[in-house]
């Protein structure tokens, strides 16, 4: 009986969805045209090849007709004279709640004696505490492993990146690593909620609590506390050195990983290397109010500026994720499909993944695929 009623209901449900689609067609004429509603998005091209890649994304968005208006701001630490003040950019992101960002270059030395980089300042200004990098094997890209699918979630407002360094005695520098229960719980909850939302099975906390018993210990305990709230998700912990070894030998075992700041940065890059390099992995930084979509591994690739060489795949995927986030999932799927098809066919590849094509050729290939799928 229950089976019948459930099936009847499912039938009705499907019927209603189909009906919805049809009815909309018929009543739209009576009720007039739908007003043009567009999403505003802040755009930070960044340094190195960033501007070229961002331009490629805009071309794709234009081709597909995605209703997104970009507000470009040039923000740069290596080019301070051209840079827009940080407050202005932060205000824009706060208003629009979404941002697409290239990579900001950070010099190894500080001209002003300030320890915080521009990237860190932006994160602090917006409280972008969670960095999510989805490392996933792409079709048609040759790499050591073919079935990697893990999500690395990194706390990025404290830990080693607190920019608190001082030289107490000449020749002795201390660098403070800050770990707080509040932020550790926040990132752990983020990871578990992410796992719940995306139907993931396991969360692994990466730590070094055997050495840093208090600092990383606090992080680990916070994760354990939060894990109790999620009885359906497996919780696991792994020491960071072992974790990196496991990543390169058996990456399939990882699902969602939650890490403090520095380890996250290392594991992010390691993961990106596993599936084809910095040009193909998309990432995003979340605060509670806004999201900044940026490539997963942070390399500016400044050697290739103006040479039309860089791989725009990561940026395209960022753009697709952005569209999905703002409830435009149809466009998002179209872009992802087009990128995957181009990669799978393998005729057009950029140099970093073993091809000979240029950024522009790849972009046009994706646009052509989009147009084909539209027909």
């Amino acid at each position, binding site marked *: 009986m229950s089976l019948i*009623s459930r099936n*009847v*209901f499912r039938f*009705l*449900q499907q*019927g*209603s*969805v189909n*009906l*919805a689609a049809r*009815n*909309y067609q018929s*009543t*739209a004429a009576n*009720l*007039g045209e*739908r*007003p043009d*509603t*567009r*999403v*505003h998005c802040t755009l930070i091209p960044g340094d190195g090849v960033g501007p070229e890649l961002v331009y490629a994304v805009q071309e794709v968005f234009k081709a597909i007709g995605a*209703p997104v208006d970009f507000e470009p701001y040039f923000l740069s630490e290596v080019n301070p004279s051209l840079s827009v003040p940080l407050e202005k950019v932060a205000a824009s992101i706060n208003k629009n*709640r*979404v941002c697409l960002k290239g990579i900001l270059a950070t010099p190894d030395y500080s001209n002003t004696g300030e320890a915080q980089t521009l990237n860190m300042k932006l994160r602090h200004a917006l409280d972008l505490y*969670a960095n999510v990098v989805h490392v996933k094997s792409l079709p048609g890209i040759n790499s050591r492993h073919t079935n990697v699918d893990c999500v690395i979630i990194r706390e990025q407002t404290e830990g080693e990146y607190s920019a608190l360094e001082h030289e107490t005695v000449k020749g002795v520098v201390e660098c403070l690593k800050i770990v707080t229960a509040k932020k550790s*719980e*926040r990132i752990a*909850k*983020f990871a*578990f*909620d*992410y796992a*719940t*939302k995306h139907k993931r099975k396991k969360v692994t906390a990466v730590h070094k609590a055997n050495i840093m018993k208090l600092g990383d210990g606090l992080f680990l305990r916070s994760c354990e*506390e939060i894990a109790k*709230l*999620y*009885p*359906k998700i497996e919780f696991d912990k792994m020491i960071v050195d072992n974790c990196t070894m496991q990543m390169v030998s058996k990456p399939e075992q990882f699902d969602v990983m939650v890490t403090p700041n520095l380890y996250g940065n290392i594991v992010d890059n390691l993961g990106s290397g596993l599936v084809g390099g910095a040009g193909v992995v998309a990432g*995003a930084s*979340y*605060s*509670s*109010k*806004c*999201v900044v979509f940026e490539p997963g591994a942070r390399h500016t690739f400044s050697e290739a500026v103006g040479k039309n060489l860089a791989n725009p795949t990561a940026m395209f995927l960022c753009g697709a994720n952005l569209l999905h*986030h*703002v*409830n*435009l999932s149809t466009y998002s799927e179209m872009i992802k499909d087009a990128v995957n098809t181009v990669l799978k066919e393998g005729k057009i590849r950029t140099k970093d993944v073993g091809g000979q094509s240029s950024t522009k050729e790849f972009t046009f290939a994706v646009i052509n695929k989009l147009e084909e799928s539209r027909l």
Partner: protein
Amino acid sequence: MSARIITKTALRQKLHEFGLQKFPNKQLARMAAVAAPAMSDFEIQHKQPLVKKTTSIPIALYGGRNAVTMLPGGGIGPELMVYVKEIFKYSGAPVDFELIEIDPKSDESNDLEYAITSIKRNGVAIKGNIETKSESTIVQSRNVAIRNELDLYVNVLHCHSYPHVKARQSNIDILIIRQNTEGEYAMLEHESVSGVVESMKVVTKSNSERVCRFAFEFARKNNRKKVTTIHKANIMKLSDGLFLETSRTVAKEYPEIEHNDMIIDNCCMQLVSNPHQFDVMIMTNLYGTIVSNVVCGLVGGAGLLSGRNYGDHYAIFEPGTRNTGTAIAGKNIANPIAMINASIDMLDHLGHKQHSRIISEAVRKTVCKDKLHTPDLGGTATSTEVVQRIIDHILQADLRAW
């Protein structure tokens, strides 16, 4: 404190090992027992909801998108939830649902526990009515269990008439605020002598005060003029008397709001004959469920109004009268407005005012202007037609995509 006890115990134990001090085992055991229940703030918050909490869990809001627990419940619940999801999709409301099904037939409480944990994580839930089929005494009503476990001490029902909906009374605008966790719903019943069953009604000062304060604050915030306490203190002089007394004490702190009281039987009569005299009403648990059903009946039935349950940390939104509607499930005639109104309340609570405004405007246009009514309101439209029209209105509205 507990840490200090542990160290003290450890120290004594060490002394004992060195044979410096005779230390009776019993005392050691007692001290260990004192140290053991040292709970973290998290555990205090989640295992003992009645303890005043100091810290709250970070809310599930990521990049502007809220995670919300969805409990479809039984009967028409699942279909109504599908409509809510459709409407959210078209209005671009930034909410992700975590769907949790509870099997109404099983007596197991695993699903229920998981649902409660999920609400604790997300802080907010939208729910249909969950059936408890079992009549076995050990199985608690699931609705009541959720409310008690999360300490959702107040239920708010905003009863207002929709123009052009056929109803007994028009222009009604009453706020019913109901104590939600104690009173007759304390679920303490026993048979002391064979053939004699006693059921306890529990009224506590602290809970009564919380509800009354909530009501007056709510009245002040929404510019309401009058608060009426509904009771039966002429018969239950102590229990209802306490509730009435507490409400009078609290009322003194809000001199700008008029306060009076009314006995429940008289109140029901007044409601059906002259409902316009009421503004905000506060009452204990059982009277609340009766009065809210009376008023819902006056303005057009169970399918229109939505109710809100608030605690200190969590909020649950549901249709105003708690009916499952099993009889009309799957027939495409259930009125979706109540659940949609609940989702509007939820968006309001989460702070997505723009989306809540657009959806409520679309609902108003559909019900009042297009007069598209389901059979329970005397119309002929199906549920899907109503939802479709609401979506059409949403698509006309000028809104950002999210």
